[in-house]
């Protein structure tokens, strides 16, 4: 009997949008030794146990499942003698469950099955690479700085993506973490006169610490209620930041005195300085994406997704819910804070004015547009955002307004365009635009059911 013929290990009634096996593969990945042991059993042990004993093989704490594992294996082995004559049908069902778990833990099906990428993703990758190389060569000093800001924005969107897409915690307040990262880095580099590297890390770490604080309530507050709390945070932040002038610069904002100067061999023109900052930011963004990818593919990332899909089941499988939720939120806030800290490298000024709550909503919208639960989705979201704001800017020019009105109108455009996109895409691309790039899953129909706690509120 091959692995593929076995039934879905953890059937979830009433949820036909679910890819069979995906859930359980996440869970089962936590206990590979245990699963491997059961998988090693001969096939005729299928007629086994009462359901209680079968489920009892799931260890409550993953770190000390050794004895239980041995016990479970023993009990399964010894089972055939005690099988009642009339029971093969149900008993084999239970046995299948056990083996299903085992199969899901097998090396070839750990976590998510490898995604086959469609031709679109190659086109996208080529376009992105061309843009990343050609952009600095083709832009002026100002354009280069603006484009670098776009690159940095990926970090903030990725932060939202980690919290919401991978962690299943809706965060409508990530603009707050961007702001905290910027203020923290500015404080470190100016008031504490720390070197830039340390300041950037300090800003990001500070944002991460605040994120951990915000993550604490997320232990108990879920779903739409968490959306409510984070939206509240986003709205409350700006007026509060105005009143803490030592940190945020108060109403007028704070200028950053220190400047990131490139080494002399890099060139001394303004353009070369811009290029240096671009390269640094690009490197940081790339590094952060790579780290994020690795974290998501490793144990904490699996824990994250297990908690997202079903926290009770995750807890049963030995995931520490507190640690997982708080660290997820802290990681996502750290990324957002990093974006803020890099922001002051590019523009040596920061102010609470730059972080109205709408910015948080737009960040969330960007993550959703690109596609939650996908790192490249965040990149795509930012790209889409820029394309649309370019179109909006073009249209704003056409209508021929005064400079101030045009500026305001541009800001409005972005909000407006994002609102329309959010509504439209929720109808058409429920998984975000990244779904277009992924051939292996039906992106039109897939829906939001993967993303989290909405399930627990259904009852």
């Amino acid at each position: 009997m091959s692995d593929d013929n076995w039934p879905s290990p953890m059937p979830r009634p009433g949820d036909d949008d679910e890819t069979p096996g995906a859930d359980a593969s996440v869970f089962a990945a936590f206990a590979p030794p245990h699963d491997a042991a059961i998988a090693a059993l001969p096939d005729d042990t299928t007629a086994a146990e009462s359901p209680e004993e079968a489920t009892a093989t799931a260890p409550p704490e993953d770190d000390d499942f050794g004895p239980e594992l041995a016990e479970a294996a023993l009990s399964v082995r010894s089972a055939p003698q005690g099988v009642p004559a009339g029971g093969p049908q149900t008993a084999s069902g239970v046995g299948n469950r056990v083996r299903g778990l085992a199969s899901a833990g097998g090396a070839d099906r750990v976590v998510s099955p490898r995604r086959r990428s469609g031709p679109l993703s190659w086109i996208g990758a080529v376009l992105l690479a061309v843009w990343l190389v050609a952009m600095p060569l083709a832009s002026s000093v100002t354009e280069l700085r603006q484009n670098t800001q776009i690159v940095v924005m990926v970090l903030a969107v990725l932060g939202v993506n980690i919290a919401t897409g991978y962690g299943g915690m809706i965060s409508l307040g990530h603009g707050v973490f961007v702001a905290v990262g910027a203020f923290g880095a500015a404080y470190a580099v100016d008031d504490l006169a720390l070197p830039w590297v340390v300041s950037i890390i300090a800003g990001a770490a500070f944002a991460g610490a605040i994120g951990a604080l915000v993550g604490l309530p997320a232990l108990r507050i879920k779903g739409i209620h968490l959306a409510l709390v984070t939206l509240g945070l986003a709205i409350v932040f700006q007026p509060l930041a105005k009143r803490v002038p030592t940190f945020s610069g108060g109403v007028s904002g704070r200028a950053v005195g220190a400047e990131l100067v490139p080494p002399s061999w890099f060139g001394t023109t303004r353009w070369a300085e811009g290029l240096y900052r671009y390269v640094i930011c690009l490197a940081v963004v790339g590094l952060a994406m790579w780290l994020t990818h690795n974290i998501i593919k490793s144990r904490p990332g699996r824990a994250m997704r297990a908690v997202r899909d079903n926290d009770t089941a995750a807890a049963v499988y030995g995931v520490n819910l507190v640690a997982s939720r708080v660290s997820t939120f802290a990681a996502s806030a750290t990324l957002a804070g990093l974006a803020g800290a890099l922001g002051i490298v590019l523009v040596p000024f920061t102010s609470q004015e730059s972080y109205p709550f709408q910015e948080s909503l737009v960040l969330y919208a960007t993550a959703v547009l690109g596609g939650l639960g996908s790192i490249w989705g965040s990149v795509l979201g930012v790209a889409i955002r820029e394309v649309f704001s370019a179109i909006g800017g073009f249209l704003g020019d056409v209508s021929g307004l005064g400079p101030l009105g045009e500026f305001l109108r541009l800001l409005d455009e972005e909000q407006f365009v994002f609102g329309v996109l959010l509504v439209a895409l929720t109808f058409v691309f429920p998984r975000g635009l990244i779904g277009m790039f992924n051939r292996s899953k039906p992106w039109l129909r897939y829906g939001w059911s993967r993303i989290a706690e909405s399930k627990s509120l259904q009852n």
Partner: protein
Amino acid sequence: MNWNWEILPDFIFNGLRDGAVYAAAALALVLIFKATTLINFATGELAMLGAFFVYVLNVEQGLWLWLSIAIAMLISAAIGAAVERTLVRPFDPADHLPVVLITLGLFLIINAVAGDVWNYQVRRVNDPFGHFPSWVPNGSELKTSSEGNIACLENADGDLAEVAAGTAGAEMCEMVGRTFFEVIGARLHYRTIGIWIALALALIALALILGKTKAGLAFRAVSSNTESARLVGVNTGRTLGFGWALASVFGTLSAALVAPALGGVNPNMMLTILIYALAGAALGGLDSLGGAVIGGLVVGLIKSVLVSWFGVVVLGQAYFSILQLAMAFLLILIVLLFRPAGLFGTRRIERV
């Protein structure tokens, strides 16, 4: 510690006045949550739109103020029902995320459109409760007009200040006339009384609609159990649309009542009020209509008495005044953390 007891009634009145506005906005949230367990994040913006309709009809078109408010309520109701029909109903109500996204999108759209059409300047509106109507007797309980002037100016610093009167100076106040009674040494403003009466009338109307009409009965059935209601023949879709319409009416009411106190209408006027309303709704229980009213009033009282009076006056710490919003946020946080059902809401039991 400077226990300034004699000004406490002033703060209580102010708190209950603001609280009544929050209660109306909280009702708009709760009416939708009760039926669908969804939070309509665009509640504040829909209400703001309603206030702008009042502004257009009354100030720009010159209609009678109360007629403008009534028409604005009807338009808002139509918009609310249309939003429900086109944007919300296609999605499975058990799955919250699409509707969160839709209402957030609406939030951004309405805010941007209002900003585009009316820009972000504060536009003065007429106050339905600016001064006593002529039939109120000039009895001894009314202050004389000279003292009324002073009140106008003093009030310009308050959080729901009579900005228009304050900035225009004493002559303006003379024109406006007497605006308050004196009750137990505190000023009970006509606006305060008017907001209370308006809220009370709206609550009575809501109770009658929900309790005595067929549509109200259907609404109660759907919010109690959607599936069962559908099985016994209630048109759930239409009923939910009705709920959204009612919610929009209450939102518009709150915005129309609060607009004169904020100095006028502008696209961001409902932001902070949305937070207070969310706090009130969470405190009362997100699915309890009575809870929303009580929660809104309590939030107004906490804001005024605990923060403004106790913090600023008694403790003498001016920075307490900036904590009003933070207080509302903390209240939401604490309630959802320790008592997610609020004071009067139904406790949800999770089955795994």
